[in-house]
């Protein structure tokens, strides 16, 4: 006698499955996911997406046919009272050949565009591209623009409509740089450079994160990709290339800002964080950090509250991060926040 729970479960299974499917479909829409790969917004990403949709299409066809055959067989050949003994067939050579050739053909339909796209995306862009050097660190990303003499961190600023060429490496362990909206990903190695390029089609501020396990804070090693119109990018670069403002000599400056500037030296921040546009140190470059959209490697919105929280106790948000707790008092933190905010 079949177990009542078993029967009830099997009875409800279709309804439950339907409910789950409805939820899944609702959760499917890519537009609610800012890191989605399904809304390509650059040439490279479109090529990758085209291959994805091709393989998804064939996979769906095969899925429907094969799972359909399975379900049909289960229904049609289930044991029923009075059923005859089945024919003891051992195989069929023709069938074996047919169902070897057809999948081979389908795979060829995927293989040809694949190989074409591999070679297309492997071709490095020409000299008109904007060059960016991307350096992974535990647990933040550094961006250098050799043509512009700029070093920054946390946010990759790029012009839309112009090819950007990324030459990427790491200063410690393996990481992986990913632009889900614009290009795929590439792992970064300590002893060489890997290359990725793309031409953004839209402007916007997009989230992304490291995709190669790199230690304790791999989960909070994020960054932003900020695409802007070429004129806006040029303006950003020109503004960035200004030396850091010295508030100590400025009589009109907020005293809190001046105090912050003094603390930035006195408390040793300057030992790890450069404020100069072209100078990298062991920590993220903080030039114009005041106007970045995010801090703490793309994991916190750049509000005064978050900046204070981060400076007060970085270990609380990102345990194991290389920035120590400096044991700062509240008023010292406020001053530093004001100073960094003024640095735009």
């Amino acid at each position: 006698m079949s177990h009542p729970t078993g029967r009830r479960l099997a009875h409800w299974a279709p309804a439950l499955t339907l409910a789950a499917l409805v939820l899944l479909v609702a959760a499917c829409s890519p537009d609610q996911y800012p890191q989605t790969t399904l809304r390509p917004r650059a040439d490279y990403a479109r090529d990758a997406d085209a291959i994805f949709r091709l393989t998804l299409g064939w996979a769906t066809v095969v899925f429907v046919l094969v799972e359909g055959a399975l379900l049909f067989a289960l229904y049609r050949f289930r044991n029923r009272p009075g059923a005859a003994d089945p024919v003891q067939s051992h195989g069929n050579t023709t069938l074996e050949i047919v169902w070897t050739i057809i999948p081979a053909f389908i795979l060829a339909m995927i293989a040809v565009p694949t190989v074409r796209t591999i070679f297309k995306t492997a071709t490095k862009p020409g000299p008109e591209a904007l060059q960016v050097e991307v350096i992974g660190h535990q647990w933040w990303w550094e961006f250098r623009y050799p043509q512009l003499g700029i070093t920054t961190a946390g946010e990759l600023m790029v012009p839309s409509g112009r090819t950007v060429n990324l030459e990427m490496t790491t200063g410690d362990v393996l990481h992986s740089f990913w632009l889900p909206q614009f290009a795929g990903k590439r792992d970064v190695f300590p002893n060489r450079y890997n290359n990725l390029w793309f031409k953004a089609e839209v402007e916007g501020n997009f989230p992304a994160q490291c995709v190669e396990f790199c230690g304790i804070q791999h989960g909070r090693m994020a960054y932003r990709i900020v695409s802007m119109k070429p004129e806006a990018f040029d303006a950003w670069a020109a503004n960035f290339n200004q030396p850091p403002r010295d508030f100590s000599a400025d009589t009109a400056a907020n005293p809190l800002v001046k105090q912050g500037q003094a603390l930035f030296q006195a408390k040793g921040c300057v030992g790890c964080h450069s404020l100069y546009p072209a100078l990298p140190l062991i920590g993220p470059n903080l030039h114009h950090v005041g106007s970045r959209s995010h801090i703490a490697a793309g994991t916190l919105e750049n509000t005064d509250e978050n900046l204070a929280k981060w400076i007060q106790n970085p270990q609380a948000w990102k345990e194991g991060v290389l920035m120590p707790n400096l044991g700062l008092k509240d008023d010292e933190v406020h001053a530093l926040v004001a100073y960094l905010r003024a640095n735009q």
Partner: protein
Amino acid sequence: MATTAIEQTPAHSVEATGLWSWITTVDHKRIGILYGATAFLFFLLGGIEALVIRLQLAQPNSTLVSPDTYNQLFTMHGTTMIFLGVMPLSAMYFNFLIPLQLGARDVAFPRLNAFSYWVFLLGGLLINVSWLFGAAPNGGWFGYANLTTKQFSPGMNIDFWTVGLQILGVASLAAAVNFFVTTVNLRAPGMKMMQMPMFVWMSFITQILLLLSFPIITVALVLLMIDRTFGTHFFVPSGGGDPILWQHLFWLFGHPEVYILILPSFGIVSEILPVFSRKPLFGYAAMVFSGVFIAFVGFGVWAHHMFATGMGPFADAFFSLATMIIAIPTGVKIFNWIGTMWGGRIEFKTAMLFAIGFLGMFIMGGLSGVMHASPPADLQQTDTYFIVAHFHYVLFGGAIFALTGGAYYWWPKMFGRMLDESLGKVHFWLMMIGFNLTFFPMHILGLNGMPRRVYTYSEESNFKLLNQLETLGSLILAVSFLVFMYNIWKTWRIKATAPADPWNGATLEWSIPSPPQVFNFPALPQVSTRDALWEMKRAAGGSVPEPQRVSGKGIHMPNPSFYPLVAAIGVTVTLGGFIGGSHLPVHIAGVAILLFGVYSWAFEPA
């Protein structure tokens, strides 16, 4: 009948009981049960690790566990499930079934067999002892250099990992030698290779894969271990080493490893489907050759795990095409399994439900695998939850479903009791629902930007809803295992009176009592066809009588021995001396124990 000069001692004619008889057993059936029970416990441990992971991921910015604990959890979950779960569960079936299906009395090297088990147990315990030190491995199950070098992983975590896996490797290699030789040399009189049960064929191919791939991971682990312990620079860039060397070595092992994980399950399903469809396996020769092809080509696809490393377009294209080619024999197997059921008379016993579930889920996992065979698409998918979805569909939906089906199928043979069919169906449906609810949404999360191996995610990402569904699914999965364990407990209390052949089986293990006597067959069977038992039944007019238990007088079985365990302890202590640096006294003690164990083993009477 004249007795032979070597009389059986009374201890062998009756099944010995008690703890000492299990510690000294060299009987493949007992060793199989030891493997199964131990592996199941490790599997539950891996499952608990997964549940904690799922609870942590149920909320954005959760602080249920610290980042380091999380990294230890996912590393140990993967390592446990692969090396302490699926592989030894497959070993349970190799052990129990291969001699029986071949019509043999035991494996070729019974004491080596026991040695493999003890090494597995000790290795598994050693790697888990790390939890007590708060230093469980935390570099991922794949342990990529240069994160795992001493500079970036200064603690003992990675030492436990390299040492533990080397010990487990010894177990796997010893077992592979054993089953390889058993299959080649100990088949029943008349049984040709192309007449062996499909489970034995798939296991045979698995042993070859083990023999060829485990040395590679051993080399990789030794190189990493000496980098960490003696300051060599194989993977340290500042010394001229290259982290990518680790990836090549690891995946040269790692890809054949996934076929090691799945081929035994292919074999199990190939046993269950014909019996419950009442017709033979469709396309036996095609199944053998596709298995051989998969194993062979499986050594040529390793760098599809490395598409994001920038190997260049020619390497990417080669490995992409090789990976797609492997899909062809895999498809052939799937079609032959459907062909087995086609035109049959299908009985939906629990074992059959799991075999069908395997088929349905493995098809899905295989298709997502083909999707990442293409580098341009894979460069979005790799290192995201899309990959996590893929391999759970093939390893859980594939291997675990098949291994579970095998349990329901062979339980009566192993223990003389049937598992309850109704509870079995509850188990199956809960597992189907829980499994799909847990792992299907991962496809969506991966494509929408959720990376792997992250201990949390932001509110802004919107990953919360699907993660919560997955956590709910994992809880349903946990309940399904509770039902299974209840089934085992409930039916254990019945007396062992299961018939020899409850399912109308096709293979020789069903021709002897349940559970079998220590010598397996009173007289070695004479075989001339596939599906030997179906043939015997046909020849006898449709059925054979219930086999009776006999005295077994005159049959010499190998003596039990304590020395495989001693030797296993020797191996563990010797290698364990590398944890936290090289400790010479520990190495010396270990070698001394090992030499004592091996010497005694070599000179004791067989």
